[in-house]
């Protein structure tokens, strides 16, 4: 921190104001904690026979894949001042659909069966998202209530699809989603990253981002400016549904079993936290998909750390909540201002000025 040039300090303070930077710092901190417990935590092994990478970091990346996808969709929904609580249930629906179809198809190594299962799941996810979107856009129901209902309905639908069973199926191609490697990296992570980047590019390069933000900030003014909020809202919720469906397939493909009550359970919480960690605002009008991806990585790291440190499973939620609460506090401007005025650090040229003003005022 002993930077001599004020421009560097200014740039650093500017950087610290970006919420996702705190997410990155939190990830690094968690990794350091793990390193202290086991100095070889970050070691990455290369499987000599097939060149695949393995290690804790790879486990984290693999686990982050579904969260990255769901958080990307969630960040768009939240930017419109909405919320999608149904993502976890949509994951279960997609998982149930895939497993049920593959079981009935009974084709252990058929590519076409795998593709059909994926297409059906994605289509169902899109339909569920569109229903939420239509209810929000045309009926004017509150997003929270609408997707809360969809959350219940989706979980129920998943159980109907599998007749309440935890369906198991075999299909090599489908299983490749979770267990395959490309270039040494797990397929799930690469796919999630590619999809997230694609969506980011589309939103950035088209006018979608501006319009979504505009709706989130001032829906009435947006309508008067000729933006059709209904179409945009339905698109955004449908996209969230599609991404949740893909995440659901990721979640079931590793064990090739859908657990209708556990698949995607509480994923909406993880996704919302990831978005907020990344700088989204539940009031709408803020969009940072890169931040959401950072948030998703943080959640995955946190999950793995909890297990690694041997935190008792009954204390896990409280531990997770504490870490995230501390992070939110650090992101909050006024908390940072409070910390700063308590212990002035004369090395930073801007801070003594701040303190002086607050004393004089």
């Amino acid at each position, binding site marked *: 921190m002993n930077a001599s040039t004020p421009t560097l300090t200014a740039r650093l303070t500017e950087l610290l104001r970006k919420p996702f930077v705190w997410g990155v710092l939190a990830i690094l901190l968690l990794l350091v904690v793990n390193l202290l417990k086991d100095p070889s935590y970050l070691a990455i092994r290369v499987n000599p026979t097939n060149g695949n990478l393995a290690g804790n970091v790879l486990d984290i990346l693999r686990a982050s894949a579904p969260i990255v996808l769901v958080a990307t969709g969630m960040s768009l929904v939240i930017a419109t001042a909405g919320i999608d609580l149904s993502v976890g249930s949509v994951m279960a629906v997609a998982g149930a659909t895939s497993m049920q179809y593959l079981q009935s198809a009974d084709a252990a190594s058929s590519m076409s069966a795998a593709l059909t299962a994926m297409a059906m799941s994605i289509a169902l996810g899109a339909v569920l998202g569109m229903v939420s979107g239509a209810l929000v856009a045309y009926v004017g129901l509150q997003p929270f209530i609408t997707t809360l209902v969809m959350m219940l309905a989706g979980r129920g639908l998943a159980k109907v699809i599998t007749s309440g069973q935890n369906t198991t199926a075999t299909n090599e191609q489908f299983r490749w989603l979770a267990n395959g490697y490309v270039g040494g990296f797990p397929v799930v992570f690469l796919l999630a990253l590619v999809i997230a980047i694609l969506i980011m590019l589309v939103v950035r*390069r088209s*006018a979608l981002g501006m*319009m979504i933000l*505009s709706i989130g*900030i001032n829906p009435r*003014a947006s309508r*008067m400016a000729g933006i059709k909020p209904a179409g945009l809202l339905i698109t955004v919720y449908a996209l969230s549904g599609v991404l949740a469906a893909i995440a659901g397939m990721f979640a079931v493909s590793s064990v090739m079993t859908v657990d209708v009550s556990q698949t995607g359970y509480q994923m909406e919480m993880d996704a919302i936290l990831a978005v907020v960690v990344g700088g989204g605002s539940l009031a709408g009008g803020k969009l940072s998909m890169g931040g959401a991806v950072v948030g998703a990585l943080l959640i995955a790291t946190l999950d793995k750390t909890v297990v690694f440190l041997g935190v008792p499973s009954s204390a896990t939620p409280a531990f997770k909540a504490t870490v995230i609460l501390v992070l939110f506090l650090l992101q909050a401007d006024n908390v940072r201002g409070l910390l700063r005025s308590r212990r002035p650090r004369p090395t930073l040229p801007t801070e003594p000025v701040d303190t002086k*003003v607050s004393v004089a005022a």
Partner: protein
Amino acid sequence: MAESPPVVEMTGISIEFPGVKALDGVDFRLFPGEVHSLMGENGAGKSTLIKALTGVYKIDSGTVKVRDAERRFHGTADAQAAGISTVYQEVNLCTNLTIGENVMLGHEVRGPLGINRRATFRAATEALRKLGIGHLDPRAPLSSISIAMQQLVAISRAMATDSTVLILDEPTSSLDAAEVDQLFGVIRRLRAEGVAILFVSHFLDQVYAISDRITVLRNGRYEGEFLTRDLPRGRLIATMIGKDLEALASLESSREARHTETTDEPLLKADGIGRKGSIEPTDVSVHRGEVVGFAGLLGSGRTELARLLYGADRADTGTITLDGKKVALTSPVSGLDNRIAFSTENRRDEGIVGDLTVRENVVLAVQAKRGWARPLSRREQDEIVQKYIAALNIRPANPNMLAANLSGGNQQKVLLGRWLATQPQVLILDEPTRGIDVGAKAEIQDSVAKLADDGVAVVFISSELEEVVRISDRVLVLKDRAKIGEIVNGPEVTAQMVVELIAAHHEEPLPDGDPTDDPTTDGALRAPTTEGASAA
């Protein structure tokens, strides 16, 4: 008057925002028992000075003295505790609460069982009576009274804390003449009680009617303090804008010279369009290159009619033809598709998207028309934005600034730019000059005249009748949600004629109002939010 010491004395106030010196060594004094007007163009620093006084903004240098003691407030609550209360341009009250609760919010009378409602309402009635509006029922919901009455309630609320300084920031911008008279009655009453009043308004007549002293700001600098009786209007305006009003005078002559050219088929023709509960079936026609003014008081249906012409609201009855072809205007999208643009009077809620940049606000409608899949390139955006920043003189000329950080007049210009960028053939402007200063007003009026010369059909709505008469080729007069006449403009037409037309049109009984309506509120003065006037 100046014998007693000032209650507030600000000296050498400077405030700097990133990149802008908002205030630069400004002096300001407030004397008890005096109305002091703060004048200046948009962005001159009036609101900043008020916020510096009430502690919303931190002062970089300079001193604030209240009753000879140097003070620095940390927010409006702090300032209020020192007896300085503010009533803002837009009424900041809770419409879901009762009148009494609004007056007493934060200082309710408390008893052993929490808030003593009866005593609270009694105190509220007392506060209302002090301002001569004791006839209001403190238990009635705030939403049941007109905007003007709400403004007075806001003042009672400010005075309920026994303030010695009252700041009124644009209190008259949404009031009509009779309501302004009522407000001025209240202000005079408070002045007689020794309250020091800081008054901000863009209406020169009002400033001259009410104020004893005027301080002028320009570009964040102090231009001088004058006694109102020593300052002729011409000199005031010259001080404010640094030039005289030739612009307005030349505008007048140009309109009068060319208003008779339109005899062909109208571009926009509406037959019997109406909407239940907002406007009776009405005929409107607008020719290419013609400016049609809608004149009428607040609540006369002028805004409601304009909204039907754009598709912001859907008409129940009637047909609209554009260029001879029948069109269905069911939504803003359909209006834009037919190259109709509508600039709303409700800038904050329906106009500006505050947390987007000026650039995004200007290109928003063009982009919405193209759809999200065909984005404007950065270069195209820059071209559009630079063009309108220059043409409309938007200040500061920074396309990357958040629109919310612009002054009201510049936000209005950004909105005008947004609509002009869509290259409309019909442009509907609802109160485009409300709450903005003389200079910006002249610029906007000038733009309207130019647009008409370029063949755009313009509908111009303003609560300033002089402005409507000055700028329009034809004036459509509305009253009580119906059209009562049309005047073809000419040299002999004056705002007085329009007023007489509205005043004379009294043979019909007023429509049945909401029974809970205050009986003293004249039908013609009713704010548009008041519901219940059924279609006769």
